[in-house]
C-alpha cells in the first residue's frame, strides 16, 4: 500500500511540474510580447516530452531561445533548470509562483522588434525517445549577454524548477 501511494505521489508531482513548466513558458512568451502560437501549436508534443523526461528524471533544463528571424542572432534567453533534490524535507506541498515570472520579465525587458523563438530540452544521457522531438542545433552564442538568476518558480517535495534569464550587457 505505501509503495502504491509513493508512486502515485511522484506521478502527481510530475504532472504538476509538467503543467507549471508549460505554464511558465506560455507566460514568459505572452508577457514578453511574443505570440505563443509556436508553443500552442505543438503543446501536446512539448508536454509529452517534458512529462516523460521528468518521470525518468532525465530532464535537466528547458531553454527558451528568443532570436531575430532576419539574422538569427540571440535576442534573449530563458533557462528553466530542474532540481531533483529540491524539497526533500518538505511536507508534500506543490506550488507555483507566477510573480517570479512577471518580476523577471520586468527586469529582463521586452524584446524590441519582431522575434521568434524555439524551446530546447536538455536531458541526461540515456533518455527515452519521445515522438515529435529531435536533436537540436546548438544554442546560439551568449557573447555580450549576462545571466541573471530569478530563483525557484516551481516547488514540490521532490522536484523544483529555477528560472534564469540572459540579457544584453
Amino acid at each position, binding site marked *: 500500500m505505501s509503495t502504491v501511494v509513493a508512486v502515485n505521489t511522484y506521478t502527481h508531482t510530475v*504532472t504538476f511540474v509538467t503543467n507549471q513548466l508549460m505554464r511558465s513558458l506560455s507566460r514568459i512568451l*505572452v508577457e514578453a510580447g511574443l505570440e505563443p*502560437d509556436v508553443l500552442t501549436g505543438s503543446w501536446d508534443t512539448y*508536454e509529452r516530452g517534458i512529462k516523460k523526461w521528468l518521470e525518468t528524471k532525465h530532464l535537466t533544463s528547458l531553454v527558451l531561445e528568443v532570436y531575430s528571424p532576419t539574422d538569427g542572432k540571440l535576442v534573449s534567453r530563458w533557462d528553466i533548470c530542474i532540481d531533483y533534490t529540491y524539497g526533500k524535507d518538505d511536507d508534500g506541498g506543490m506550488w507555483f509562483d507566477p510573480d517570479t515570472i512577471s518580476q523577471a520579465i520586468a527586469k529582463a525587458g521586452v524584446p524590441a522588434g519582431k522575434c521568434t523563438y524555439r524551446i530546447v530540452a536538455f536531458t541526461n544521457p540515456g533518455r527515452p525517445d519521445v515522438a515529435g522531438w529531435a536533436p537540436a542545433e546548438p544554442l546560439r552564442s551568449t557573447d555580450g549577454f549576462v545571466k541573471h538568476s530569478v530563483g525557484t518558480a516551481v516547488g514540490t517535495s521532490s522536484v523544483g524548477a529555477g528560472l534564469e534569464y540572459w540579457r544584453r550587457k
Partner: protein
Amino acid sequence: MTVIARRFAAEPRRTSSETWAAITATICAEDSGAANEFKAVAGTAAALIADEALRQHPLVIEGGGVRVRLYCIYGEAALDDQELNESFLAANPFGGDGWRCHLPCKKTDLGWVTRTLQRRSARFFAYDMNVGLGDTNQDGAAATGNLTINAEAFKKL
C-alpha cells in the same frame, strides 16, 4: 433553457493536454464534427487549462440546444472523485449549425487567445473572465424567461 454542468479533473491528476482530451472525448462523444473542432484548438485550450483559467470561470457551449458549463478542478480536489462530474451528456449541445464554445481567459490574454482560436476554428471564442459571458452572471445564474436557473446548483449534482 437547460443548463448542464460538468467538472473535470486537471492537475495533478492530468496534464492540461490530457484534461482537454478527456473533455473532448466525453463532451463530443456523439458528434465527431464537434470533436474535430475541439481537437483543432487543443493547444490553446490546454494553455488556458494550465493557467487555471477554467478553475472559477467555465467553458460554455451554447447555441446548439442545451447549454453546457464546464469547470476544471485542481489540486487535491482533482484527486477526489466526489468533487468531479465527468459523465457523458444526456443531451446534445451541438445540434444544428449554430453552436459556439466560449473559453475564459485573462484580459491580458484576450488578444493572442482570440487570434489563435480564430485561426483554428470558427466555433471557438474567448471571453474576459472578469467581465463574464453574455447573459450568464458570474455567480452562475442564467436568466431564462421569467425563471432564473442557478447553474451553481448543478455544480453540486
